[in-house]
């Protein structure tokens, strides 16, 4: 090693040294985006196409309780991705046992079960699944979870009513129907 820095200090010429380099997080997101399978029920929107770390995912379930709705999620990914999971929030106020009124989502792989080997596709599959099979055992909206557990018909009616938007069960829901 000694030979390497024997005498003089390194020269610091070479043009373009201060140019920013594509970051490891950008590279990984780029790879994940190329592997995304959105199918016919999902689409993405990039408010600033140069910034791939921030985008919206729209899910339009074609079956289940939430069929016919349009649901938007904000994805915000930091420079420590994939060590850190993406931050995902629902931008609308909706009635869902695993999503609270602030849009927080209870999905295990977004928090306690996130691993760097998981990719964005795993996350969007997980989100899609929440609309097909809302999960009463991991509630963020406790009231909705109770209803789902005790009476699926009432739950279904509540979902439909809330999806039309307006004041219901003490909350102002967003209209998510087309």
């Amino acid at each position, binding site marked *: *090693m*000694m*030979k*390497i*820095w*024997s005498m*003089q*200090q*390194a020269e*610091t010429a*070479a*043009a*373009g*040294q*201060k*140019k*920013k*380099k*594509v*970051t*490891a997080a*950008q*590279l*990984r997101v*780029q*790879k994940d*985006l*190329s*592997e*995304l399978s*959105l199918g016919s029920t999902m*689409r*993405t929107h*990039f408010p600033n*196409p*140069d*910034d*791939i770390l921030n985008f919206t995912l729209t899910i339009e379930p074609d079956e289940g309780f939430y069929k016919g709705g349009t649901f938007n999620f904000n994805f915000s990914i*930091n*420079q*420590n991705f994939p*060590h850190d999971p993406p931050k995902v929030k629902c931008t609308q106020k909706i009635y869902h046992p*695993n999503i*609270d*009124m*602030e849009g*927080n989502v*209870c999905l*295990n792989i*977004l*928090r*306690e079960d*996130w*691993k*760097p*080997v998981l990719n964005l596709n795993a996350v969007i599959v997980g989100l899609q699944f929440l609309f097909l099979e809302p999960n009463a055992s*991991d*509630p*963020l909206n*406790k009231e909705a979870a109770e209803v789902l557990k005790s009476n699926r018909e009432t739950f279904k009616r509540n979902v439909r009513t809330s999806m039309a938007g307006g004041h219901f069960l003490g909350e102002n829901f967003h209209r998510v129907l087309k």
Partner: protein
Amino acid sequence: MARARWAYLDRVLNRTGPFTDPDWVPGEAPLESLLRAKILVIGAGGLGCEILKNLALSGFTDIHVIDMDTIDVSNLNRQFLFRQADVGKPKAEVAARFVEKRVRGVRITPHCCKIQDMDEDYYMKFSMVICGLDSIEARRWINATLVGMVDADDPDSLKPLVDGGTEGFKGQARVVLPTMTSCIECQLDMHAPRAAVPLCTLATIPRQPQHCIEWAQIIAWEEERKDDVLDTDDPEHVSWLYSKALERANEFNIPGVTYSMTQGVVKNIIPAIASTNAIIAASCCNEAFKICTSSNPFLGTPESTNYMMFSGDDSIYTYTFEHLKKDDCPVCGNLARPLEVNPEITLREFIESLAERPEAQLKKPTLRSEAKSLYYQSPPQLEEQTRPNLDKKLSELVSNGEEVAVSDPAFQIDFKFKLVFKS
């Protein structure tokens, strides 16, 4: 300079030992390297205090230290270069002054800033970088920077990176020779992810005081102070979280929420044990000394071990092994190659030319620079948004010497090119 103080140290430099390389010449030359070496220490916290002290006591004389933090009263139990009167002052500065005062002849230059504030010209000045950080993000940044700085024609551009880390009774010391041996990014899976509690537990059935604090941070803050950006260094913000957490803990009959626990949870303070810091810092500094003087074989020699893990959880266990370089590492797997291009051709023409390059033969490339999404094959909406770039000239999209990363579903790894404009 009188070297009486260094008599013991000089014995290692003035004669060969059983393990020294047969080509090594003891005496003036290794001493000269030690005195000339310019060392950068990143972090002046628990590990950093130990590292600075050790380097000075190992005969290094030219040290820089970077740390953006100021001294908090909770640091005083183990960050022994700081005193009560220093609370609120920059760590880098106080640590530097303290060590300079105690060890005659050492110069320590402090920088109270983020590592990201310094450019490559700055990092290029050093012989070696030693990290004593608690942030994975900062480690990844300096690693990528040092890997990116390596110029095959200039051996001085290769800066060994010595990295120490501790968590409770556990720790590791590792050495990276950027581009030659496994890098921090190759080893990302060695960091255990932060243990997280399911969001629904926080929201519905908190069981521990920490759950109440996390609830205040994630849910209450968003509900009530959405428009303020949470700053975990702002005492008013921490106090607010503390009072919210306390209310919630009372509601669920959970004892134990305190202000300092709130601070610990929201700042994700990892429990630090002074002795673990001392062990890991000592190991890092010994390696730095050996790398610099070649007096003995060091951790991280290519094709040998490069990673020492230490665990004091169950008696003492240490294990030193070789972490292999990953071929598909996004940082060191494929280094940026200079590529001469005509700045007047369009992006479409450039992409077509990539398909013809023998080493790449990229069929469906996606390209970006740090600042710009040049062209994305998918998802469909991004493809549509970036399509207009295909007919733009390269000179409109990138600047001379800028790096472009190219990925293609046919390849596991990304290609990086530094576009050099042909005049």
